């Protein structure tokens, strides 16, 4: 652009550029960022998907606010939907029906909004998994991991507050479950519930209150955290995958202008387009089916949106008779335990980078990503976490699993309880062994080359398969990683072995007891030496033929 300024004096573009530069210094900004390098990999775009879904949420949400009325005053419906004509319902529900049936494109926008909400949290979750399994959270990005974590939680909050707005039977029962959970909190439960609902459940204020949070506070916070998140990406520059020429002190990729402007800009339209395609063809949250909220009925298959599912699952999987009444007060452990499990899980996710950094004691900056197999314990912990989450998540669908797969509801629920405890342990060991095997295979390939599938017979009758040596670039990808070795608990300056040191030593053993080191130059040469004799033999064979 700054070139254009000089080249085409007097052109419209140049005029605009000049105008902007003299007022906001746009030339300096472009000089700084215009050719910034971004690495290219499909998995780096998952966060972008979340960002674009959020933009779609803002656009479609703004449209919906023009028609939605967050009031719980009862009215008699007289709209277009036949089987609710004459029914008593809240204004909020009636206006949701009007958006769906009496505003052209209204139902489309509702579906765009809801589908993009599901996609926003899903893409953020997948992005977190990518960051976790590649070790992108390591120094200097621990704080950005926390910021991202906050965004994920805010996404859930935004989703839940929105889910409750139509005031239909499904969302009303969802709110009732929240009310029940809040009441179970020791000491303050009943008061908190009364403050939230403005008196007894359901009251006439909750929708308006959630609406305020949903359209103002939560999106504003999400925006602020997105800005912080992206700002930190600019400071750190993006990570890149290990490979030849990719180092901790460089960043390899394509320049922002023009390649990334086109790719990322185009990708926004693609994400928007995919959401629009789904919204145009697949029903989501058909509120007209559920009827207005009434505390007496409930529909089979009453579930929250997917991102709250793990909490609902935790509630279902709690064992019977956990509640304790002692000294005139009630400890509702059947509610508290699931809440502790859910919040505890999230806390571990949030703090994981700090735990791993403490165990490894690694203070270097890391900009080259780990291949998951090269951090076997972390990958195994991740797999265990995913299994744990998945068991809670599936717990929220026990009734649907039972009916759709013709199983007993009770057995499904009991199996999920077992899976919740046993599943992560099994997943941990399988994943860890798998990673170690893959690492061993990498070593094999580096040392002895790829199997070519060509079998030759040596003069003395032995058959060997010819291995093709690796290209230097391919090989580097397989050896560019660091391994860690466990440490012993060492006394500190005062000569005492602290509990912390013991725990850290124990954890380091847990992490790095089984470790496979990358192939070094000496080892590689030794192996090549062996191969040389093998190849000699082959050459000899060919000569004798």
């Amino acid at each position, binding site marked *: 652009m700054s070139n254009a300024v000089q080249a085409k004096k007097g052109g419209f573009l140049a005029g605009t550029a000049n105008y902007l530069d003299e007022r906001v210094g746009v030339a300096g900004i472009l000089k700084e960022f215009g050719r910034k390098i971004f690495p290219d*990999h499909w998995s780096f775009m998952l966060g972008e998907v979340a960002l674009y879904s959020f933009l779609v949420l803002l656009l479609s949400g703004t449209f919906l606010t023009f028609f939605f009325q967050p009031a719980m005053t009862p009215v008699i419906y007289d709209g277009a939907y036949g089987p609710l004509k004459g029914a008593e319902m809240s204004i909020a529900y009636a206006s949701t029906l009007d958006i769906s049936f009496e505003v052209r494109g209204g139902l489309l926008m509702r579906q765009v909004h809801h589908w993009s909400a599901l996609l926003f949290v899903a893409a953020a979750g997948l992005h977190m998994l990518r960051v976790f399994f590649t070790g992108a959270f390591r120094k200097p990005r621990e704080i950005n991991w926390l910021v991202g974590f906050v965004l994920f939680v805010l996404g859930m909050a935004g989703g839940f507050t929105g889910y409750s707005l139509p005031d239909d039977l499904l969302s009303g029962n969802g709110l009732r479950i929240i009310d029940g959970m809040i009441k179970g909190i020791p000491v303050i439960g009943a008061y908190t519930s009364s403050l939230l609902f403005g008196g007894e459940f359901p009251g006439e204020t909750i929708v308006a209150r959630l609406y305020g949070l949903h359209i103002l506070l939560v999106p504003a916070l999400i925006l602020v955290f997105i800005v912080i998140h992206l700002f930190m990406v600019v400071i750190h520059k993006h990570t890149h995958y290990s490979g030849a020429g990719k180092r901790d002190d460089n960043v390899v990729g394509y320049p922002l202008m023009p390649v990334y402007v086109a*790719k990322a800009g185009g990708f926004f339209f693609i994400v928007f387009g995919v959401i629009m395609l789904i919204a145009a063809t697949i029903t989501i949250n058909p509120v007209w089916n559920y009827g207005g909220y009434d505390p007496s009925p409930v529909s089979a298959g009453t579930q929250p949106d*997917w991102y709250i599912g793990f909490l609902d699952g935790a509630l279902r999987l709690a064992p019977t008779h956990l509640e304790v009444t002692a000294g005139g007060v009630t400890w509702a452990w059947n509610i508290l335990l699931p809440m502790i499990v859910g919040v505890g899980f999230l806390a571990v996710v949030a703090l994981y980078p700090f735990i791993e950094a403490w165990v490894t004691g690694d203070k270097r900056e890391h900009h080259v990503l780990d291949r998951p197999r090269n951090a076997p314990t972390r990958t195994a912990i991740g797999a265990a976490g995913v299994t744990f989450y998945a068991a809670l998540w599936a717990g929220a669908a026990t009734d649907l699993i039972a009916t759709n797969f013709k199983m007993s*509801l009770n057995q499904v629920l009991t199996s999920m309880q077992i899976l919740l405890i046993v599943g992560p342990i099994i997943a941990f060991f399988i994943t860890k062994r798998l990673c170690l095997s893959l690492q061993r295979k990498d070593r094999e390939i580096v040392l002895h080359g790829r199997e070519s599938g060509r079998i030759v017979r040596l003069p003395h009758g032995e058959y060997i398969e010819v291995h093709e040596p690796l290209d230097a670039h391919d090989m580097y990808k397989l050896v560019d990683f660091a391994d860690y070795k466990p440490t012993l608990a060492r006394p500190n300056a005062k000569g005492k072995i602290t509990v912390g040191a013991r725990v850290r030593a124990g954890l380091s053993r847990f992490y790095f007891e089984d470790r496979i080191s990358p192939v070094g130059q000496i080892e590689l040469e030794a192996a090549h030496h062996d191969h040389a004799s093998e190849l000699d033999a082959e050459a000899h064979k060919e000569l004798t033929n």
Partner: protein
Amino acid sequence: MAFMKKSNGSRRSPFAAVLVIAAGLALTGGGYAATTAAVAETAAPAAADAAQLDTGHKLFLANCASCHGKNAEGTNNAPSLIGVGAASVEFQVDSGRMPAQASGPQIQKKYPQFTADQIDAMAAWVATLAPGPAIPTDAQLEANGNATRGGELFRINCAMCHNAVGAGGALTEGKYAPSLVGVPADHIYEAMLTGPQNMPVFNDANLTPADKKDIITYLKYVESNPSAGGYELGNLGPVAEGLFIWIFGLGLIVAITIWLGAKSN
């Protein structure tokens, strides 16, 4: 034929097998539907004459008495049928649940084993044992009631088991509330009236005949009006929606990111 040709092209695709099975099922299903429709049309309005009662009794002795007892007094394997009424017989036999095929948590719906005449005969005979709910008249079954009221009644009395639009749901220990999609109005009416298996009874004091008509009206409205928002995902609610966005939504987008990140040739 066009079907065959198409699937020939992709013989090795796993979808081919699915297509063939689906086509087969559609054909047989269609055939069955045609026959039963024909039978239903020829069925004359039942008058409980002696010949019919005799046929009914014989059919009962041959097909039902082994479990329900010679005089329908019930055995350890099956309940007494005295006083269950003609409505119960028609529901159970016409929906294919009776004669039961296999024991299990719940007796399954299957293809009806008797013609409408035979069912009427058995129902007439069972109705003579003791007074019980009668088969509803066509006027009671017509879906011309108040759908709004029907929807409200359905949500309060039925939706907790059958789901808000009748997609079905789970009960304890392997039992379930079946989907109501495609269930004929007479079966819906009779099920409410007689409370088959673990379903409670909704007698005329609880849900009046007008209430029942309204419920049928609502269900038929939902059934005949596909969702305004596009494909319904089985009306299973947020779980199905969540699975869809993860598998298809995010799946499609990840596929696109892979295309986006791949180097061009």
